[in-house]
């Protein structure tokens, strides 16, 4: 696994060399050597900076991402990471024309993304997709956004000014050792731009038959070494429809504002950021749902001598969710984290960290359901570490592990071993074995239906942690300056997955009655066809073999933990029609979901962006152009269908 980069700015070492102009094979060797040297944490930090000849082999974009002053930094090269990592770049998000975070995530071929209804999404990696998907770690600038209520993410509460996202790293597969307990099947790591990279003013407005958006940002400097930005965003989405054309009454809107302040001096960086949001989601009786939240995060990083450095970060996150007639949840979470990296020996790069998280919730239960106890304080204490060992020049072993203590199951151990072999500078072959754990959340232990006795569902007092052991192998290559591709095969054995079991008293309880495996393949690549045309393609196939353990009588027959397609693919085309006109297409197909059955669908998304003059861009987008509407998740006939949409946007930066 690559290193954690709590120190905000990444290497920018793009997996894709969009602007490459060097074509000779030797150029690639130079490129790779150079990247190693320019990103010294890859083990060559004592080398002098690369000669200018090899610098000219880099693309403009790569040149613009070389750190020119630091010798030792926390950044690692993603293209060297022995894991299944896909990076969504800022340029991809802009050209796809996503207006919300979940829509941007559709760009990652290794994620399952299904819109469930207005504002609600089911998102996961490597299976187990559902509205209560619980095996994904999701972080926004290092802040964990999954809720301890069900170990999943309320996607309607997570949004950003998408123009301020630097990149989104999507790791499919286990990464619990470095990223935390929930990273059983993957990590989504959203990284926003440094404030210095979002200077000036931006105004973005647009509307269409499905959504309206208004956003603005202002960035400026404070003194010699400080930068800030403030932003605000309004997003409104129209209601979805059922198969018969009836409105679902799930239209929703949210507004959000936030800031980020960065302060850099040689060797030190300090970051402050915060967001606050409020949203309202229509529903038929008994009235609209309301959400609100706010967070504040600070992070300090210092470079020490000889490649060492540390990062100290802290955040507080508040959220409220009011579903009239169902429940109201108030949640406060605080986290403190310390991360240290060092190079005690030229063949070792060590990283270790300590984090403590504390959450306090207060739930107003209803007649429908209850979380008992209604107030709960939970805390998690983790110690984790990683050693990257250069066994030989082209062979690297990464050993990592995390011990986490939680209130439900005590201590859990999550070790991983990864081996990376680089037979040539433009190839990487890797393999990994990891153990990961999903510890219980409130819904696994404390969930009661109805809200008062006698209960039909009476919690899960004995629910234990779910475990997974994953075996992965992957190959990544840059066969030419114009192309790159990646393939990963994986097999994960799961044990103690969640089931709902009949108890002797005639009620149901939550237990760990399911086991089995998921196997699959993930592959993607891109090819620069001509100077002004690049295509991307991705394919994911999944096969699950889950079965109930002896003694289990799961009322859902073991089918409630996920509803996954056997395969999905996407092809994207980024064409510069003219110097000032972008034309983008994405065709994606998601296979049929088995239970509840959702037909396979093919969607065509399109965007034309026209820069009327520098700084002013007019865009026209079409989504789901092939059909009037289609379902992506849920059971017929009550489920929402996602309809064709048109959106006209204007973005002005000045």
């Amino acid at each position, binding site marked *: 696994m690559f290193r954690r980069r709590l120190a905000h*700015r990444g290497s920018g070492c793009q997996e894709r060399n969009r602007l490459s*102009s060097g074509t000779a094979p030797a150029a690639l060797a130079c490129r790779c050597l150079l990247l190693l040297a*320019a990103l010294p944490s890859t083990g060559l930090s004592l080398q002098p900076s690369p000669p*200018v000849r090899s*610098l000219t082999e880099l693309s403009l974009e790569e040149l*613009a*991402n*070389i*750190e020119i002053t*630091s010798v030792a930094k926390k950044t690692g090269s993603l293209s060297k990471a022995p894991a299944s990592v896909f990076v969504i770049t800022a340029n991809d998000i802009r050209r796809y024309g996503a207006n919300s975070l979940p829509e941007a995530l559709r760009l990652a071929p290794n994620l399952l993304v299904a819109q469930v209804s207005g504002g609600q999404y089911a998102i996961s990696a490597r299976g187990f997709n559902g509205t209560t998907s619980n095996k994904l770690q999701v972080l926004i600038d290092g802040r964990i956004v999954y809720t301890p209520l069900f170990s999943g993410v309320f996607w309607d509460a997570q949004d950003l000014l998408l123009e301020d996202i630097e990149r989104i790293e999507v790791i499919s597969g286990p990464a619990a050792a470095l990223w935390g307990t929930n990273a059983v099947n993957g990590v989504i790591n959203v990284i926003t731009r440094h404030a210095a990279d979002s200077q000036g003013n931006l105004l973005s407005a647009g509307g269409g038959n499905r959504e309206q958006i208004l956003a603005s940002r202002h960035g400026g400097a404070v003194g010699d070494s400080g930068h800030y930005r403030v932003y605000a965003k309004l997003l409104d989405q129209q209601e979805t429809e059922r198969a018969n054309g009836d409105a679902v009454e799930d239209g929703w809107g949210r507004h959000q504002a936030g800031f980020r302040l960065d302060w850099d001096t040689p060797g030190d960086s300090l970051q402050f950021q915060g967001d606050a949001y409020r949203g309202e989601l229509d529903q038929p009786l008994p009235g609209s749902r309301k959400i609100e939240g706010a967070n504040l995060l600070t992070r300090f990083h210092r470079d020490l001598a000889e490649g060492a450095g540390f990062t100290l970060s802290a955040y507080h996150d508040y959220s409220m969710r009011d579903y009239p007639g169902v429940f109201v949840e108030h949640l406060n979470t605080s986290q403190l984290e310390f991360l240290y990296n060092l190079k005690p020996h030229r063949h070792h790069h060590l990283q270790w960290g300590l984090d403590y998280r504390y959450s306090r919730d207060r739930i107003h239960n209803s007649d429908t359901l209850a979380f008992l106890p209604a107030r709960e304080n939970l805390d998690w204490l983790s110690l984790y570490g990683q050693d990257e060992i250069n066994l030989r020049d082209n062979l690297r072993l990464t050993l990592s592990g995390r011990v986490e203590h939680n209130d439900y199951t005590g201590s859990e151990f999550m070790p991983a071993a990864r081996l990376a072999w680089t037979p040539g500078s433009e190839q990487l072959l890797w393999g990994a074995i990891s153990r990961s754990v999903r510890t219980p959340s409130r819904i696994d232990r404390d969930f009661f239906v109805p809200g008062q006795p006698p209960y039909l569902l009476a919690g899960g007092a004995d629910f234990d942690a779910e475990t997974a052991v994953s075996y992965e192998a992957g190959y990544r290559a840059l066969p030419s300056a114009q192309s790159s591709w990646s393939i990963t095969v994986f097999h994960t054995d799961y044990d103690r997955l969640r089931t709902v079991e009949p108890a002797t008293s005639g009620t149901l309880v939550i237990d760990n009655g399911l086991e089995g495996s998921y196997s699959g393949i993930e592959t993607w690549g891109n090819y620069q066809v001509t100077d002004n045309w690049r295509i991307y393609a991705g394919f994911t196939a999944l096969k699950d073999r889950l079965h109930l353990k002896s003694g289990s009588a799961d009322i859902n027959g073991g089918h409630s933990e996920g509803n996954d397609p056997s395969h999905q693919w996407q092809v994207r085309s980024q064409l510069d029609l003219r110097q000032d006109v972008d034309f983008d297409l994405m065709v994606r197909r998601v296979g049929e979901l088995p239970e509840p059955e959702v037909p396979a669908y093919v969607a065509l998304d399109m965007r034309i962006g026209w820069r009327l003059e520098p700084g002013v861009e007019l865009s026209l987008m079409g989504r789901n152009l092939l059909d009037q509407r289609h379902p992506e998740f849920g059971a017929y006939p009550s489920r929402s269908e996602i309809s064709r949409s048109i959106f006209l946007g204007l973005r002005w930066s000045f």
Partner: protein
Amino acid sequence: MTATARMLLAWLLLLPCTAALAATDNLETRVKAAFLFKFCNYIEWPRDTFSSAEAPLVIAVMGADSLAGELQLAVMDRQINGRAVIVRQLRPDDSLEGVHVLFIGGKGAGQRHTAVSTKLPILTVTENEHPAATGMINFVVVNDRVRFDIARDRAEQAGLKLSSLLLSVARRVQTGVPL
């Protein structure tokens, strides 16, 4: 003198300079030199700028000797669109005749040249914070990285066409107003 011999001579003359550079390990200078070379791939000059299809492309460097040295190394035996590339070090009084790319180094000097060269089909590149002294492309160091801003109007008024790929990597692309 053949082209190769000329290159070799230039390289030998520059050797002490580059040795000094290696010692100071000035990556910023090297990255800027690499950018200058690469920019040429993304610029279209007016047709009559070159006397023939084989006429060399001339990159002139003013007030940045170490960068000129690096650039000399970068362009050796290289061609851009079938043209050899020549690096020429300019003094303030030298003519801009035959120059296709002009780099004006330093923070203070060069305002006069910027004013002259930006009216000619010469891609003028600067590293200056002062708005009046920036060329069509201006290097800025942001977050320890070398980025660049583009004054697109200036370039287009001078008859240069900038590729969209170049514009897309720029930190800022501005028209009219000084950067």
